[in-house]
């Protein structure tokens, strides 16, 4: 069954590392819905969250291929653990003197912040999980959405521990495969 899968990928901060990943996705036909990248608490390591759409087996295959890239240190499949995820949306909504109050009221309900005020538009910042962000957009649609930018989802596993032990960052050679999927059992036929 085709569904969205949330993956986090820890990578060496090397030139072209993003190209390596997107080229791999593109060449093998994996469907990426969103991708966001940032630095981490570890110097030289970046973290990327991506949403891959597809059958479970395709996503497992994508993970296995990612793990083969030298600059990929670790891949986390968030479907295996509890996680928190957030997305940031910037949206410019058209307003008229008549709609202005109603738009602001909806924004308040969503705890959206106004980040820019124009004569004929308000720009909001909303964070939340994907559902909340999408719901906010739906609420605003009747007023007229001028422009949007979404960051795509970013995720962390819940709990007090780091997703991977620090030695993985530095050892480089001792990369382990994601445990529950280490041998591709998503593809098992019974």
């Amino acid at each position, binding site marked *: 069954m085709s569904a969205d899968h949330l993956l986090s990928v820890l990578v060496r901060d090397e030139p072209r590392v993003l190209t390596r990943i997107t080229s*791999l996705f593109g*060449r093998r036909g994996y469907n990426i819905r969103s991708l966001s990248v940032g630095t981490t608490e570890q110097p030289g390591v970046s973290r990327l969250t991506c949403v891959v759409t597809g059958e479970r087996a395709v996503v497992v295959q994508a993970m296995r291929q990612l793990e083969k890239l030298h600059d990929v240190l670790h891949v986390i499949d968030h479907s295996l653990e509890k996680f928190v995820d957030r997305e940031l949306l910037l949206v410019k909504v058209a307003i008229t003197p008549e709609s202005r109050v109603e738009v602001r009221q909806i924004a308040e309900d969503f705890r959206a912040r106004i980040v820019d005020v124009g004569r004929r538009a308000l720009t909001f910042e909303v964070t939340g999980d994907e559902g909340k962000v999408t719901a906010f957009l739906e609420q605003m649609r009747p007023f007229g959405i001028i422009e949007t930018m979404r960051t795509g989802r970013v995720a962390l596993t819940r709990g007090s521990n780091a997703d991977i032990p620090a030695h993985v960052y530095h050892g480089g050679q001792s990369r382990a*495969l994601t445990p529950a999927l*280490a*041998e591709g059992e*998503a593809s*098992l*036929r019974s």
Partner: protein
Amino acid sequence: MSHAPPTPSPSGAPANGAQALWHSLAAHGVTTVFGYPGGAIMPVYDALTLFPDIRHILARHEQGAIHAAEGWARATGRLGVCLATSGPGATNLVTGLADALMDSVPLLAITGNVPRSLMGTDAFQEADITGITLPVTKHNYVVQDAADLPGILAEAIRIARSGRPGPVLVDIPKDVQLAPFAGAVTPPHPLPPAPTPDPARVEAAAELLRGAARPVLMLGGGAQGAAAEVTALARAWGLPTITTLMGLGAFPASDPLWLGMPGMHGSVAANRAISEADLIVGLGLRFDDRVTGRVSGFAPHARIVHVDLDAAEIGKIVPTHLPIRGDAGQVARLLAGRAGAGDPPRRPDWEARLAEWRTRGGHPDHWGAAQAVRQVVSRLGPNDILSTDVGQHQMLAAQLARFQKPRRWLTSGGLGTMGFGFPAAIGAALAEPEVTCMVVAGDGGFQMTAQELATLTKYGIRNVKICVVNNSYLGMVRQWQELFHERRYSEVYLGDSNPDFLKLADAYGLPGWRADNAADLEEAISAWLAHDGSALLEVVVPNEHGVFPMVPAGAALSEMLETDPRSPVAGGPA
């Protein structure tokens, strides 16, 4: 203006980036490199003059150089090294890199590039070679600082050789080659150990083997380094054994358990066995589409145990019942150890069916490419190397050669690269000067890298025996047009314009023989092999012969055409 001769530092330590490169390669045991110089790699070639112990083989085309490096690596299992200049030199390596990636060949490609200050400006002979080769290398690097060079090379070589091997490219801007170097050479990195196979899964595989009535062992290129172990495994359990195109030689063809090659041009026995098996144990293969035929019809009755080092291969094409991540040799040893003592189990019904299938298929008993190739390859000794190009002659050689040892069969399996066979044999011949390296090439593919005849001459290479199977056509394409395009032969005829291959050889100082019938061929082969030195044999064969058995594209293995629908067949084992 002339450049001063390269000077090593008084201590003998490398004085600049280019020297650090050679020092590093020497520290990794590199003795032979294949390459072609040009502006952006001149400091490296200048520094080479300080390294008399490293042999550089100047090819006549970078593609020749990289396929030779591949041939070296495929025959020895060691690292192949090639060099090229920036821009066109580097782009000429692309085919070889893709070829090496597909067939898991450990390879290091060094390219020069324009100075860092010019990178990204479309400078003369600048190509973004790391960008271009990103999808066809296991990894690649641009060296930004001479001080990083030894570390990068050690890492690059480790990556090329470890796990599932593959090609790594290191691009060195010219100013980095020239930059003063004060550091030390990095010693070789130890190779990481293969992942330990999960004992529970190994035991589960042994349990499946105990219960199997119709088991089959399938060996791929990953078994080339583990021939002894996989052979012991097959014998311990009495497993009928199939070797893929890349696995030929991993199991001795003389063993009664051997069923031949599977897939599109596989043997009747191998393909029927797969189609009827109740258990397939696959080691070091990737279930390529040429092996499986239509996947939904592949091994419909079998449980599949798939052993591979590369977790991404497991379940990629064929759904697997029991995946085992590990080294083929290690897992084979563990599984062999779990066989009962005494004689291997007998399975009379299964053996009887296999015996019947072995009698099917086969090639026409009249003169043609199949008979010619059979006559030629039957002269190979157990230690001799056979390298092929790509096309009908390749499939015939794969069907007809009988390998007793691993790494004696060099063929472009995954990429199917025409032009591969001859330069690959040159690389193997340099690695093993005492061994006859036979090439079986088509009239089409030989002309893709025939310029390397000069390389034979230049280095006095005496152990390459080239056989051109001349059918006047791009035969394999013609066969498909015959079978699937109602004989609309579109742009496949070469006969009106092929060179005189003997004159071509002669132009490079190589003797040649020609034959166009079985009796003459027998004599010509003897003279060709007896000649003390490299030589060429042209076999002129009828134009329109096909390679059979054949599984048409999109068909299941069980739907194979066992023999040429148009020709009678000799019968007997294929």
